[in-house]
Every structure is written in structure tokens, then in C-alpha cells.
């Protein structure tokens, strides 16, 4: 099929692909930011068990989690202008990138809202009551007590979602977006060095994913510093005899991944 394999093209194509990285990152960052907003709004009726809104948000969730993202891209790109035409709004001329970002935002939003719901639910209700009891308002209790802890809990899931989103953006080329994958398609077809192009492409995705994973891991450790096990200098001898409290064991098992590492 293509030209004979030549490793030197891998490096050449890396350089050629890199400029389109910013399009990929633009899609990732803007859809995650918008998705967080959407996720939050969708999570609220679930968290507060608001009857009708809750149903609506469930429909939204099952649609975006139950259909392939490629179909969602097509539906939004071809379908949305038609729908909006009915109310006399013309969006047919808008660049495809807008539709792509919207689709990815709504898609990630569904998963992000599940993440938010689970993380907020994981902070025990008792702490919120304690916050009320010292006189905080609902808003203060949420922002000062629940949110920081929920964020720490959510980071591993968030990390996975961002990386999944990054990889999903490779489908945007099907609407003609010149992001990483789109560009590599063109390069490959023109030069017929298919394998080299895709190796370069894989390298770029891999490096970014790997970097993101490490970065989130660092943030997680920082946010979970309160889960650290006793550092030896302020351990009371009397305490050592005592039974281990359940949450300490939980911390050891994985919640406080950072904790055990930091002990050495």
C-alpha cells in the first residue's frame, strides 16, 4: 500500500503535526470547562432530589452516555442547524469547530456530572451539619467544607475523563477539523507514509496523556495531604496500641495513595 518504512519521517511528521496540537487542546480545554459548568447544573437536581429537573437530567445523562460520540457529532453538526432553522436562527455558517466543542462539552458534561455527584456524595453529611452548627450558611458550608474534599476525591476520575476527552477529540476530523488526527490523515494520504505518520501521532497523544496523568497525580497528593498517616515524630506511644480506626485503613488501601509513599 504505502511507501517503504523510513523512521526519519517519524520525527519530521512530529514537527509537522505539533502546530495542530493547539486545535486539539482548544477543543479539550474549552469542552472540559463548559462541561464542568454543565455537569454542575445537571448534578444539582440529582443531589438535591428536585423531582422534575431530576428526570430531565437523567434523560440527558442516558442520551450522552448511551450513544457513540461520533453519532453525537453528526447529530449536532447536521441536525442542530435544521432544528434552529425552525425558530429562525441560522447557524449553518458557523465554523464546524463550534459544533465540535459543543458536542464534546455536552458529552463530557454527562460524565462530569456523575463525577460531581459521586464526589459531593462522598463527603459525609456530618461535616455539613457541623458546618451549619458553627453558624455557616449553606453556601459557606459547600464552598469551605464540601468542595475542597469533593475535589480531592474527584481528581482521579477527572484525570481519566480529561484523558478520555483528549483521545475522543481524534474523531473531530470526521467533520473536517484540522486537529492532530485530521492533520495526520492529510499528511498520510499525501506522503503515503502511513505508519510513520501514525507513530508520530500516537507519540503525541501518549506524551500528553502521560503528562496529564502525572500532573493530576501531583494535584491529588496535594489535596489529600490531610489523609496522610501519622508522621513518626508526633505519634503518641499510647495511640499506637489503640485499634486502627476504619478511615485510617481506608487511607492505607488507596484513598491516601500519596500518604503511603510519603511515609518512607
Amino acid at each position: 500500500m504505502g511507501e517503504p518504512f523510513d523512521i526519519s519521517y517519524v520525527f519530521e511528521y512530529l514537527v509537522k503535526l505539533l502546530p495542530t496540537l493547539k486545535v486539539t487542546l482548544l477543543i479539550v480545554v474549552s469542552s472540559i470547562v463548559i462541561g464542568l459548568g454543565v455537569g454542575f447544573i445537571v448534578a444539582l437536581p440529582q443531589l438535591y432530589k428536585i423531582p422534575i429537573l431530576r428526570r430531565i437530567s437523567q434523560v440527558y445523562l442516558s442520551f450522552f452516555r448511551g450513544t457513540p460520540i461520533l453519532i453525537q457529532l453528526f447529530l449536532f453538526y447536521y441536525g442542530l442547524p435544521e432544528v434552529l432553522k425552525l425558530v429562525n436562527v441560522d447557524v449553518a455558517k458557523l465554523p464546524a469547530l463550534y459544533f465540535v466543542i459543543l458536542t464534546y462539552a455536552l458529552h463530557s458534561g454527562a460524565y462530569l456530572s456523575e463525577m460531581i455527584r459521586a464526589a459531593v456524595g462522598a463527603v459525609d453529611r456530618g461535616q455539613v451539619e457541623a458546618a451549619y452548627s458553627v453558624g455557616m450558611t449553606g453556601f459557606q458550608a459547600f464552598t469551605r467544607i464540601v468542595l475542597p474534599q469533593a475535589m480531592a476525591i474527584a481528581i482521579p476520575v477527572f484525570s481519566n475523563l480529561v484523558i478520555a476527552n483528549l483521545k475522543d477529540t481524534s474523531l473531530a476530523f470526521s467533520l473536517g477539523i484540522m486537529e492532530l488526527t485530521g492533520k495526520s490523515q492529510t499528511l498520510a494520504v499525501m506522503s503515503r507514509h502511513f505508519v510513520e505518520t501514525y507513530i508520530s501521532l500516537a507519540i503525541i497523544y501518549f506524551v500528553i496523556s502521560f503528562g496529564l496523568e502525572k500532573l493530576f497525580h501531583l494535584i491529588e497528593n496535594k489535596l489529600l495531604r490531610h489523609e496522610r498517616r501519622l508522621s513518626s515524630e508526633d505519634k503518641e506511644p499510647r495511640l499506637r496500641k489503640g485499634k486502627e480506626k476504619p478511615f485510617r485503613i481506608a487511607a492505607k488501601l488507596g484513598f491516601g495513595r500519596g500518604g503511603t509513599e510519603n511515609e518512607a
Partner: protein
Amino acid sequence: MIKLTQIKKSFGRNEVLKGIDLTVEKGEVVAILGPSGSGKTTLLRCLNYLEKPNEGQITIDDFTVNCKRPDKKDIHTLRQKSAMVFQQYNLFKHKTALENVMEGLVIVKKLPKEDARKKSVELLEKVGLGNKLNAYPSELSGGQQQRVGIARALALNPEVILFDEPTSALDPELVGEVLAVIRKIAKEGITMIIVTHEMGFAQDVANHVVFMDGGVIVEEGKPNEIFNYPKEERTKQFLKRITPEGVYSI
């Protein structure tokens, strides 16, 4: 002074409080006793508005909330006049002992950080945790966590501190240190309402003992009256069941 008038609370069909009247004088230490499910926790939670009573009036000092239609601000004010010490401590897990105590002072009372810190350090020293200021709850024993919880409640200078079985989640060897702290602050004339199963403790710390059963106050009076000369049959039976070993039972 705290005055509860005809407090009623139902969960669905289950009427848990059937019209509670209770007056607590300033500086008084009130112990609430009663069998499991009698509504003791619910009563304390209503006082702090963590549970919304269906009916009745709560007066703390000269501030009254009518529970039928309270507005949000009333609830907020009421909560600032009382503080709760929880059975499960409920410390803010992402904050150190010091930050746990400071939080209310800085965020609610709007004290400058330095003043809040100074006051919090003093309180933690008072409960014997001067050497644990920067420990996170996960680094503290249950008894230590509960003492932080007490310091956190004290910090707000509430009119009344509500204790819901403050020692029942603790290992027996840690109960003493927490009771000692409560004894100490009781002597300082802070008004307290304590739900407890520690009969010995109730007998010597409380000025007033309330016995609840089935959502009503069956009998109340001086510790000596209730423990040694109970009038009501239900009180007698309850006290008989609490054997000396029962002192540490949950």
C-alpha cells in the same frame, strides 16, 4: 435561658417528639436520659435546627423562633446561639485541629485571623491538645478528635452547647479524657445540654436530669431525685436496666 415550648417533630407518620416543654436556666447542666429511640437526638437536633420541628417555639436568650414558619435568618441566628458536639465528632477532615477551631471564628464571626488563631490555641490548650495544633483529624485518636470538637463548639461562645452522646463512639479507655474536659467546662458556668448513657457522669455533673421516653418528657428533676427517688414507673424500670457495667455501654 433556653425555653422550648411544645416542640413536635414527625418523620413521615412516625411522631418522634410529641410536644416537648423544657426550660434550661443559664449556667445549668442538663442531662437527658432515655431508652434508644426515645427522641433524644432528635430533640437536640431540633434545638440546633439541624432537624426542622413541625411545631413549637424555641427561645434562646431573648431570641425566639416560631417553628411553624421560621425564616432563614432566624434559623441562622438560632444556630449561632448554640453549638453542637457530635457523637461522631464530625471534624472537618481536610483541616487541622487548629483550623477546625478557627473556621467558625474567621468565617462566621469574622474575627481577624490572628485573633482567631490566638483564641483557638488557648482553647485547644484548655482541652489538653496544645501539642496537636497542626494534626489532621486522621492523625488523632477518637478522644482527641472529640476534644477538638468541644474546643470548636466553645470557640463560638454559644449560649448553650449541645452534646449528643459525646463519648459513645469512643473506646472505653478514651472516655475518661473527654468526660474530664466536659466536667472542666461545666464548672465554668457554660450552659450545656448533654444526652448521655453515662449514668455516673450524669449524676455528678448535671444540675438537672430529664428522662425521656416515647417522644415525651416522662420526668425531670434534680439528679438525686431522679436517680434515687424516681416517681414514674417508666423511669424506675429504665434505671433498673442500667446496671453498673452499663456505665460504658453504648
